[in-house]
């Protein structure tokens, strides 16, 4: 113990940082901020440290070459002792990091922590969110599998829509004409050198400001932020009711950070590493690429936007969102901090959360995509074939063979791209069915060229049987009138 003290004293005589560090550690914070709500920022930092350590460990084995990356991931998973666990830690660490950064951001908004004088802290925080998402995306590319390969294609397609400069941006992003070796090398450089460098610099500035400006006090309804008086009030509060950050507030951060690391380790142990999925071989086209969890909502949005809206939304949407985040502390820099008095802030967060949640949920069963193998793997439910004529059964065969089942569900089986057809005969008459099949429309391809008249007849005969028991088939009212025997007969009534 005495030896440690001697060495410490010797070092500090030369480094001269001990007093500054002690002062920083023991700076007074408002008593209520020693709360479990204030632990997310430090937890994000802890996870970032885990990512640095596990990232360096992975780099000992990983080969950033398009031809070898996938093989080196297999080696990590199967040949290197506990390589799978380090990969799993890094993968789960990234999921936790994005989640914690988002929770931290929500807490900051709800507690009004971005208001004066912490505007710049917030703006650097927004930059930290961006670089964190940048790490998540580039990391997904380094797991160089089918999802990464086609995900890069999606990124290139989005980038190419930038007016005038689009094609050049694509070449710059891919490092050449196609997704290949140069692409992986530059994403490796981004993920391992460029973005972590930015991340470390932003974290340093962010932390410096948290220490210099003081942690945001617990928001009390009625305690209003005014630029003229805030600093004085804050200093009085910390003087009157402050506690030293170390040790009276920091213990919660320590426990929560440790708990998060344990949770990551538990997930890594139970669920294992992410992928890699199939080889990044573009000639294997039997694949349905999907992004990682935190980009699933974007995948859903890209499917649901109307075609004409897509390019404007892709190019303008992010700019507007970023601008809104950056301007937030300038527009709402003063006033109430308590979420009890800020219903619009609460509702905005709920709206964003519900939207992102809904899109993420939708991406779980992708109702917009045809089920590519439904026609060959999902049979027609037997109750739809029982007591049917030969023609109707032939129609059911056409339904399968022509891939109708890929987009249309029967008894909840099959694609959800188009409407389910369990009651189509209640909704459409025979003539309408024929027209819809032949001409398409309403986002359905026209099958006129791909069905012989006999096939169309059989298919429509089958479709006409699709109605729940007890419900009448659709009828053309005007046809009934036109064919009625007394049509045009003079009125016999006086």
């Amino acid at each position, binding site marked *: 113990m005495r030896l440690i003290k001697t060495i410490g004293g010797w070092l500090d005589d030369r480094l001269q940082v001990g007093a500054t560090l002690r002062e920083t550690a023991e700076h007074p914070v408002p008593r209520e901020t020693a709360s479990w709500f204030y632990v997310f920022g430090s937890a994000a930092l802890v996870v970032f440290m885990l990512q640095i350590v596990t990232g360096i460990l992975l780099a000992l084995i990983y080969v950033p*070459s*398009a*031809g*070898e990356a996938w093989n080196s991931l297999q080696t990590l998973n199967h040949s290197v002792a506990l390589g799978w666990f380090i990969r799993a830690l890094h993968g789960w660490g990234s999921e936790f990091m994005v989640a914690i950064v988002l929770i931290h951001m929500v807490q900051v908004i709800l507690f009004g922590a971005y208001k004066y004088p912490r505007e710049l802290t917030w703006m650097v925080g927004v930059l930290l969110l961006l670089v964190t998402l940048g790490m998540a995306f580039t990391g997904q590319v380094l797991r160089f599998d089918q999802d990464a390969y*086609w995900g890069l*294609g*999606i990124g*290139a*397609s989005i*980038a*190419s*829509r*930038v007016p005038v400069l*689009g*094609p*050049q941006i*694509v*070449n*710059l992003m*891919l*490092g*050449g*004409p*196609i*997704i*290949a*070796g*140069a692409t992986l090398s530059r994403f490796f450089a981004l993920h391992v050198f460029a973005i972590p460098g930015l991340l470390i610099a932003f974290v340093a500035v962010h932390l410096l400001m948290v220490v210099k400006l003081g942690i945001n006090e617990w928001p009390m309804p009625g305690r209003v932020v005014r630029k003229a008086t805030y600093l004085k009030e804050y200093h009085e509060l910390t003087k009157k009711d402050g506690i030293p950050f170390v040790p009276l507030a920091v213990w919660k951060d320590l426990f929560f950070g440790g708990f998060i690391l344990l949770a990551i380790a538990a997930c890594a142990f139970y669920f294992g590493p992410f992928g890699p999925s199939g*080889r990044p*071989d*573009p*000639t294997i*086209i039997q*694949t349905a*690429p999907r992004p990682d969890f935190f980009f699933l909502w974007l*995948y859903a949005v*890209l*499917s649901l*936007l109307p*075609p*004409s809206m897509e390019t404007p939304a892709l190019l303008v949407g992010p700019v507007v969102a970023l601008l809104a985040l950056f301007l937030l502390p300038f527009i709402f820099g003063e006033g109430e901090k308590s979420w009890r008095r800020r219903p619009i802030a609460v509702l905005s967060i709920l709206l964003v959360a519900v939207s992102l949640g809904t899109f993420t949920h939708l991406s779980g069963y992708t109702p*917009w*995509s*045809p089920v*590519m193998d439904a*026609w060959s793997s999902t049979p027609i439910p037997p109750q739809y074939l029982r007591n049917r004529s030969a023609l109707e059964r032939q129609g059911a065969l056409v339904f399968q063979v*022509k*891939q*109708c089942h*890929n987009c249309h569900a029967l008894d909840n089986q099959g694609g959800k*791209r188009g409407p389910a057809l369990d009651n189509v005969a209640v909704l459409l008459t025979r003539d309408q069915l024929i027209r819809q099949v032949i*001409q*398409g*429309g309403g*986002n*359905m*391809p*026209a099958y006129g*060229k*791909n069905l012989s008249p006999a096939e169309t007849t059989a298919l429509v005969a089958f479709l006409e049987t699709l109605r729940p028991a007890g419900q009448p088939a659709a009828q053309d009212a005007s046809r009934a009138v036109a064919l009625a025997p007394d049509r045009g007969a003079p009125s016999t009534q006086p």
Partner: protein
Amino acid sequence: MTVPDGLKRRDFLMKLGLLFNGIVAAILTVPIVRYIMSPVAHARAGRYDSWLSLGKLEQFPAGQTRLAVYRNPVASPWDGDTADIPCWVRNVNGQQFQVFAINCAHLGCPVRWFPQSSLFMCPCHGGVYYQDGSRASGPPERGLFQYHHRLESGELFIKAGEVPTPGSASNLTSITSELPRCV
């Protein structure tokens, strides 16, 4: 900060030093920017696209659509499988051909051909195309990307080399629908 009179020269030298470093930085910027922009410069010079053989015509029976693969003309030894690019070849009637990019015109996912219904379907966001490559339904704003092609001494050649994207498809022919569309 005010500088004492006797030290004006040193102050001037510091400013001169800053200027000198600024000039050196500017000089170094030129090669760095050119290094970074080299993929763009190559594209500008048209060095990516070239005529490639997809093989003998007999591989592509009349009236059918088949998958073909070519090795990208611009490739590095460490590209692995990624330089093998697939495309769809449609032999319309024995004389006419169409060669479609594998990439969906929406966001580049690989489209699959279904000969039974004569449709191309995309697994990502639900884009669907007719056999002639024209848009049938879903989010794409246009038909499939189509390579320029020519027939020479019994082989099918296409002009390719760059991944087609919605913004950079000007070098590829566009497709108009065979079918009269009812709106």
